[in-house]
């Protein structure tokens, strides 16, 4: 593992009880490799390693740690700091009902499944919750959300006589309000961040319903492209946070750092399975350890 590799590096050097430019150079190369292997974006890694270098140089090695452990600790702590910190860790729900919560993201990342998981969460808090799908493109997408919603006992709104996602959203919001729902979770169709027409559609949905929360749903196994995706979605919508899905796999999840670095927005939840109860709050320390492998 990384600590062992770094210990090996330091054993070969004259360890002086203090970290300096010379003795951490090899370590920083190893750290860079580890982060790239974990799918953290190339540029994000560059900035991060430089940041770690400036923090590590001149640092005393604590008595209780080997120099390798000391460097890993600096890296780990910095990762936790970057991915944790300020930014609400929960949904921003207000007293204006319904609170529209909009889920967006690339194709297949887990939006529809996550919509149901969020509904279960808010219902657990005693908030009457409805779901609506604005995905008129994918075959059986609306059925998928309806089946999930019904098995939860959540309201499922399906405005009739319209095939326009913006119209569906607007009418569902009005219906949710008249029916007294506290939370309305909107599932949207998967789309490419470079599909201008589809990104415009999201902006029009946003203008129509004024969401309390917009969450970017992203797959934990996403590679270098996470940066482009996050940037475009955030520029178009000013997202409030991220749901990182499929964390029950063995992807290192470096995309988490890239997403945070590019948008400045917190990862609020992680998906850890296919069932409705498989949603957890994000833990930066666990994520940091996972990324470092």
């Amino acid at each position, binding site marked *: 593992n990384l600590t062992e590799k770094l210990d090996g590096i330091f054993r070969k050097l004259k360890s002086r009880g203090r970290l300096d430019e010379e003795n951490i150079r090899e370590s920083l190369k190893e750290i*860079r*490799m580890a982060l*790239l*292997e*974990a*799918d953290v*974006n*190339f540029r994000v890694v560059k900035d991060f390693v430089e940041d770690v270098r400036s923090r590590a140089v001149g640092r005393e090695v604590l008595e209780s740690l080997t120099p390798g452990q000391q460097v890993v600790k600096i890296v780990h702590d910095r990762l936790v700091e970057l991915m944790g910190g300020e930014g609400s860790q929960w949904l921003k729900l207000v007293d204006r009902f319904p609170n529209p919560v909009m889920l967006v993201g*690339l*194709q*297949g*990342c*887990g939006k529809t499944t996550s919509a149901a998981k969020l509904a279960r969460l808010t219902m657990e808090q005693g908030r009457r919750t409805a779901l609506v799908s604005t995905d008129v*493109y*994918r*075959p*059986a*997408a609306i*059925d*998928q959300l309806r*089946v*999930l919603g019904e098995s939860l006992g959540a309201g499922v709104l399906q405005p009739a006589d319209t095939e326009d996602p913006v119209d569906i959203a607007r009418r569902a919001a009005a219906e949710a309000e008249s029916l007294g729902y506290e939370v309305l979770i909107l599932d949207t169709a998967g789309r*490419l*961040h*470079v599909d201008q027409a589809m990104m415009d559609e999201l902006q029009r949905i946003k203008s129509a319903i004024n969401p309390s929360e917009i969450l970017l749903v992203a*797959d934990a*196994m*996403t*590679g*270098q*492209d996470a940066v*482009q*995706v996050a940037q475009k979605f955030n520029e178009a919508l000013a997202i409030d946070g991220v749901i990182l899905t*499929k964390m*029950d*796999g*063995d*992807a*290192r999840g*470096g*995309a988490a750092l890239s997403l945070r670095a590019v948008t400045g927005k917190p990862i609020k939840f992680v998906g850890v399975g*296919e069932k409705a109860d498989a949603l957890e709050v994000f833990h930066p320390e666990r994520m940091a350890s996972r990324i470092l492998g």
Partner: protein
Amino acid sequence: LFGEKKIGADLFEELEEMLVTADVGPAFAAELIDEMKEIAKRSELGSPDVLRTILRDNIRFILKQREAPLDIPRDGLYTVMVVGVNGTGKTTTIGKIANELKSRGHSVMLAAADTFRAAAIEQLEAWGERAGIPVIKQKMGADPSAVVFDALQAARAREAGVLLIDTAGRLHTKVNLMEELKKVGRIMGREVPGAPHEVLLVLDATTGQNAVNQARMFNDAIGVTGLVLTKLDGTAKGGIIIRLAREFDIPIRYIGIGEKMDDLRPFDSKEFVDALMG
């Protein structure tokens, strides 16, 4: 001489960044760059263009060896099991392939063996309807092996030429789900000698290094005989496929370039490298 050396360092950094951001993987990228550095030293090549061409040809060579379209015999029943982790595009890809094979004169049938996920059967049925291709299904919650068994009987009875089997997305780390897949494979082999004739692993081009784990574990579990790389219409370059081409002797059958029926292309190594390196 000094000037040329300086160009070298910047060029190699630039090429490394290009490879890594294409998801080729840092170790493999470093290896490719080291090879370039060796060549540059030995032959004293100063031109960035020549080095770029050498890299392009090198990658093309690796990929060309995995260029092999599905070769489906015109007699007998050919069975294709489609597998992969959640959300990669299996069901959509089946719709596209089914349509393409039908347009080439094959008689095609589909099996809805994802009996787990909400509306999975309905989704495949919609694709079947669009292409005018029959779909064999049971209820949600049925045993996938039972659906596949039924589908094989139906395919033989109707003398279908190709049967495409949609399976539920599953993470390669879930032992019980991988066991379920193995069971489906065994049932198929017992019913139809040689089945599954093709096990197609569908990979998402936006996936990073985890694709290597996926390929390894699916291959270890059931033996993968073909790859499909989807969502190449996005900005992800899918460079992980180069690593897979080198580490596994598995042909790359198709790429997915969109969500519509026609958004399928046979894998072409030249087009792929051109898209990767610009």
